């Protein structure tokens, strides 16, 4: 099963659904160690992305020629212009860099890994955070490591996305005891320990949606449907 632009679109739509469902949870996490807007920010951004996907005039790429990168670039520019905050430029850059390495109609497992690596590289280069600083980087890095291993072992696209999503989920949970040294939570010093990083959680949701979109397969009639 190859991952194509339709998969990318399903991924994005599922991400929007997952974020909408988790909006309250993300906001509550951010309320505890940040400023309580992460759920709202991400939801505003992904609702705008879906609105563009639904708008015949704003379609990414050109018909059948549409590449995975076309879809991801639309996500990047939309998030940059609607999210704001720290997560807007960070996710925006992640999708932009991911789009640059996926300018093809279909991507295979090594290309999926490249997409994740590019996203991580985008977040890191904009935010200057490294692993262990209690940010979304922790989730992206764990996903990349797991995906690289799975691809090296000859795993399928679904295998790669599955381990990536699982690793991101675990890594997000693993931010709980950390003391933040980047982002707004760093202002709390030691008091940031004991709470999960909202950006790491949203990254886990993004990657979970990628897997679900792959599992739903190209024949899924309802792009908004459940996995």
């Amino acid at each position: 099963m190859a991952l194509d632009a339709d998969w990318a679109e399903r991924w994005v739509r599922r991400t929007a659904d997952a974020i909408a469902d988790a909006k309250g949870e993300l906001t509550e996490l951010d309320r505890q160690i940040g400023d309580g807007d992460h759920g709202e920010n991400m939801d505003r951004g992904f609702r705008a992305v879906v609105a563009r996907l639904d708008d015949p005039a704003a379609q990414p790429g050109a018909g059948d020629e549409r590449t995975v990168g076309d879809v991801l670039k639309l996500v990047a520019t939309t998030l940059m212009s609607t999210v704001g905050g720290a997560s807007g430029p960070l996710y925006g850059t992640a999708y932009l860099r991911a789009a640059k390495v996926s300018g093809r109609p279909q991507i295979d497992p090594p290309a999926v890994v490249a997409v994740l690596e590019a996203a991580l590289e985008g977040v890191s280069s904009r935010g200057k955070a490294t692993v262990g600083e209690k940010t979304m980087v922790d989730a992206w890095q764990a996903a990349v490591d797991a995906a690289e291993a799975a691809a090296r072992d000859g795993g399928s696209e679904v295998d790669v996305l599955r381990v990536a999503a699982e690793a991101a989920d675990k890594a997000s949970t693993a931010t709980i005891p950390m003391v933040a040294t980047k982002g707004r939570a760093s202002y709390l010093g030691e008091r940031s320990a004991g709470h999960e990083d909202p950006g790491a959680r949203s990254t886990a949701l993004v990657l979970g949606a990628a897997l679900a979109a792959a599992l739903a397969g190209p024949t899924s009639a309802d792009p908004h449907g459940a996995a």
Partner: protein
Amino acid sequence: MKKLLNDPADAVADSLAGFALAHAELVQVSTSPVFVSRAGGGVTGKVGLVSGGGSGHEPLHAGFVGDGMLDAAVPGAVFTSPTPDQIQPAIQAADGGAGVLTIVKNYTGDVLNFETAVELAEAEGVEVASVLVNDDVAVEDSLYTAGRRGVAGTVAVEKIAGAAAARGADLATVKAVAERVIANVRTMGVALAAPTVPHVGRPSFDLGEDEIEVGIGIHGEPGRHRVQAVGADQVTEMLLTPVADDLALDGGDRVLLFVNGMGGTPLSELYVVYGRARRLLEERGVTVSRSLVGNYVTSLEMQGASVTVLRLDDELEALWDAPVDTAALRW
């Protein structure tokens, strides 16, 4: 949560619409993308000043657009940095051909979004310089943190840099003046009760009936530590001492003392804090030659205050005194 708002999603737009009507002689408000600029646009030959950040800190920044201060302000969603597609046109609107200084409060989101916008504006041929305000001593400034936050000291940076621009200084000079203010201004704040972000609907942090948060920022983040509520004199000491220490103030110094309300504390209480802070400074031999007391950099209806001290020299004092005509600061 009760607020004088309609749909929380429209809070910023509704408020700006009213602001535009109330101050039509001072500002014009663009709605798509959202930014505020001086009525009449950039002043030819004058360095333009642009600031911005999340909403919820009113009158910052839009209330400081006008003669002698900002040329444009870019409000994001509540407590959320604006996006580059808002900031870039604001920069262009502020440009009078002599370049633009962006004044950015040091938050990851503001820094990243302004960075991108500046790149875009430069690509359109505008000369842009930027300064980062980071006056909050509650946050440690080290290689291993996001650095100190920009809080109430921003008013001093905008006022003084604005005056420098108004008297015709070039971009490098205006930037240098802004940086001198930043190097000499420090703030520390306290919260007695948390603000409620409209779309969240519950207080940003939970405080006990006799607890206060010391070292808070202006986004409803919890502070550095929580202590038992004490009297205003003691609270003021907790705020003033780290500020004065960080500036290493001593007998020779002359300062601006600025007591800023967080939005939900009566003005009368701010004067109590001011009185105590002033006596503490005078005990150190410091001369308070300029003062500001009021709600200028708020955090919605948060109860609390911050104490800001700016070390003055003759030039900074003269620039502070220079005329200003904005919705929120005028002399």
